[in-house]
């Protein structure tokens, strides 16, 4: 099991408490968590990413329990095991496509060791996501929104992190683009080594996933 969460609760500063459904995520699995805006989807991802301090409950990633880890150990866990696709594109505008993608392995020796030839691997990822290798040295500002989204995915997948977290990556895309994007993500995603946890308010994306969890009802 790559990821398990148990009895997760989070209390916001305004006193609002969210009780998250338990998750068990194994290699090769793709899970969609759905919920309306403000239901705590991003909070859940941030808790799993170690970006938010765990208040109550238990998260275990790659066999490590978060409660027992220091913040620097959490940083290492995140760098080694998590690829994060943000809701907003979050590419660095002054870096090229190649340099933005390279960030995925820059801070993790483990992820870097999974890549023998960095350029070749980045080209492979870009090609499978429908982008030409000609864009490698292009500034990300010169790409369309859809192309930028693909670059962000390539960065999250580079070095084959065990868990890919995706925070509403299709929210800015139209239906057709969203479908294309998910098809490309599914084909690039390595089912033998990785698991995908994506949050979205759009239940129509469900066919692309093995499991759908409603965050509000804790229904599976």
């Amino acid at each position, binding site marked *: 099991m790559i990821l398990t969460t148990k009895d997760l609760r989070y209390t916001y500063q305004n006193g609002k408490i969210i009780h998250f459904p338990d998750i068990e995520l194994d290699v090769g699995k793709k899970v969609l968590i759905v919920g309306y805006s403000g239901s705590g989807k*991003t909070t859940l991802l941030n808790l799993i*990413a170690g*970006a938010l301090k765990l208040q109550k409950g238990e998260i275990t990633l790659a066999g490590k329990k978060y409660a027992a880890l220091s913040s620097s150990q959490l*940083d290492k866990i995140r*760098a080694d095991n998590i690829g994060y696709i*943000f809701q907003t594109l979050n590419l660095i505008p*002054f870096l090229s496509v190649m340099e933005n993608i390279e*960030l995925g392995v820059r*801070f993790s020796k483990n992820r870097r060791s999974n890549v023998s030839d960095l350029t070749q691997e980045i080209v492979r990822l870009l090609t499978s996501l429908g982008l030409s290798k000609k864009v490698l040295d292009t500034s990300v500002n010169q790409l369309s929104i859809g192309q930028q989204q693909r670059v962000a995915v390539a960065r999250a997948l580079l070095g084959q992190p065990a868990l890919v977290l995706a925070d509403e990556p299709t929210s800015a895309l139209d239906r057709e683009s969203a479908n294309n994007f998910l098809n490309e993500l599914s084909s690039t995603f390595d089912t033998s080594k990785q698991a995908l946890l994506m949050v979205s308010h759009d239940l129509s994306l469900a066919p692309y996933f093995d499991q759908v969890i409603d965050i509000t009802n804790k229904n599976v």
Partner: protein
Amino acid sequence: MFKLLIKSVRSRLLPVSLVIITLMASMVLLLSIERIQKATETGFNQSISGVDAIIGPRSSSLELVLYTVFHLGRPTNNITMKTIDDIRQRKDIEYLVPIALGDSHRGFRVIATEQDYFKYIKYSSDKSLSFSAGQAFNDISGTVIGADVAKKLNYQVGTKIHISHGSSQTVAKKHDDFSFEVTGVLEKTGTPIDQAVFVDLKGYELIHLGWQSGTKIFNLKQLDFSTLSQEELTPKTVTAAFVGLKSKLTLFRFAADVKKYPNEAISAVIPGIALSELWSMVGIVDQGFELLSWIIIIISLIAMVSLIISSIDNRKREMTIYRANGATPMYLSTLVILEAVFIGLTAIIGAIIFVTLVTYLATEQLNLILGITPEFDWISWDEAKIFAIILIAGILSSLVPAIIVFKKNLHHTLS
């Protein structure tokens, strides 16, 4: 990390450049003042060596040194040759070289003196004067020129020149009825000597025979020089005299004796003491400039910290992406400190280049105005210390934004 830093800085080129320029400008100001002040002081101190005292009419000691050694200003009074001869009799004197000033040649100061000038007057810690061509004059029509005079006027041994009555600042009238012939060209000394024309005191007296109160009464060509007696050619007054003593221990006694000389109001000035007075006066202004420069440096460092702190907010997305991809808070804090080091080092390198340029231009000006040619080090030890202080201050001040970055939680920016 350095690659990311450079790219990040390049994306904020204008504000970063402005901070670098401000910091650099303040360093240039500080170092230029330091360098020019030190170089001028060294240049002045090296301009005269081996002269224990300067005898002149009783007036400001600094004024006497300035016009006899540095050719700045004009003598207001003379001393009689009889007084000079009286003092020359003293047993504690090793040498006494009288000089007469007042005339010029194409803007260069004419110094009427004796042959002993070239033997006893030294420069730059006991270096003797030497000739790049020819030799010292040995008759009244001979002249020795400084290296800059020869170079700028393209003169050589054998060139005949006319001297003008009065200094270059006044409307000069030429002594065109008597020409001097260059007998020697001095090696470059980097002192006002390079910009001087030396003639024999007797020759100087000769060209003034036909003059009264600055007006030419008769033409020397009407004179038969062979009929002139040595006494007629001996000057009645001179401007000052350089004195070397057999023992430095007798210097203050000598100065006191000269002051008490009964027949004329004269004084013996010790060049080193007079120059110290000058530096203590100039030093107050220098200290003011130095204080101002340090204030500007502090302001520049504050501007740098402000830039980094404000950029942290603008770089929220950049920092978040690094963090989300596994960068530790320590990595980001180091990035911020490195940015301060980068700004500081760039400003320092820029300052060194500019200061070198400024000092090069200052050398030209100092040579033009004061006749001294100071030599500048590429970077002196004192300057290296100033750079180190600024760099360390920059790093210390960058700790504030670095701590802010360190404490910023990832979830505050992750969306």
